[in-house]
């Protein structure tokens, strides 16, 4: 079982990065359902980070 990091912590990692944030966002272990519920102020670095997390962690479909 993968231990997820919080969305806030994941966003902080992406916002502070000088590297390829697409790659960083792709590798952070976050819960897709939490990502789907998260919101951020538009036109902020946090919104950029959250959009990338949503791109690489689409919500899971439960049966």
């Amino acid at each position: 079982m993968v231990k997820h990091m919080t969305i806030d912590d994941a966003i902080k990692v992406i916002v502070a990065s000088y590297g390829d944030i697409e790659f960083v966002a792709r590798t952070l272990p976050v819960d897709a359902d939490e990502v789907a519920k998260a919101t951020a102020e538009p036109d902020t670095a946090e919104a950029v980070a959250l959009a990338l997390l949503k791109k690489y962690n689409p919500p899971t479909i439960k049966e």
Partner: protein
Amino acid sequence: MAAPNRILPGFSASMWMQSGATPTAFTTANLAVWTAQVATIVGTSANGTGAAGVPLAIEAVPAFGQDDAVASFSIAGTRQSDKIPVQSAPTSLTITAAWNPSDAGLLLIRGDAISGVIDRTFVIAAVDGASTIAYAFNGRVGQFQIDSAPGAEAKCTFTVHPRGNQYGWSNT
């Protein structure tokens, strides 16, 4: 990386950069944020605030983007070879400007070229009326030459090498 959500029918392009002698370059995510970030580098003539930036009076904004890098494979006797795209670097921007030894922007560029290790945030702004689309990137200056040939006005040529993956689009 979000693409700009504006379409400009026509535009004028200008180039801006952080004004500090030893600036703290933007993090990658902030390169895609206009409000309070990229806007502080872009001057009011391009709809920014310009509190932390200076214009670069350059002849023309050069092409920017990604270089082409391929690995070529061929087999003797076959008609066509194969080119596979491989990791390629961002395009370096070689820029010419009229040399003015009291221009703040050009002096910063010269200082960066002498140092070689200063990361600075640059912005290329495309403006049409009240709308601006900004391409921001971090880069280092790798070359600075002054050509003071007597037959023409003195000019300087410098090259900005963007850092890999450190770019972002934003707009008003």
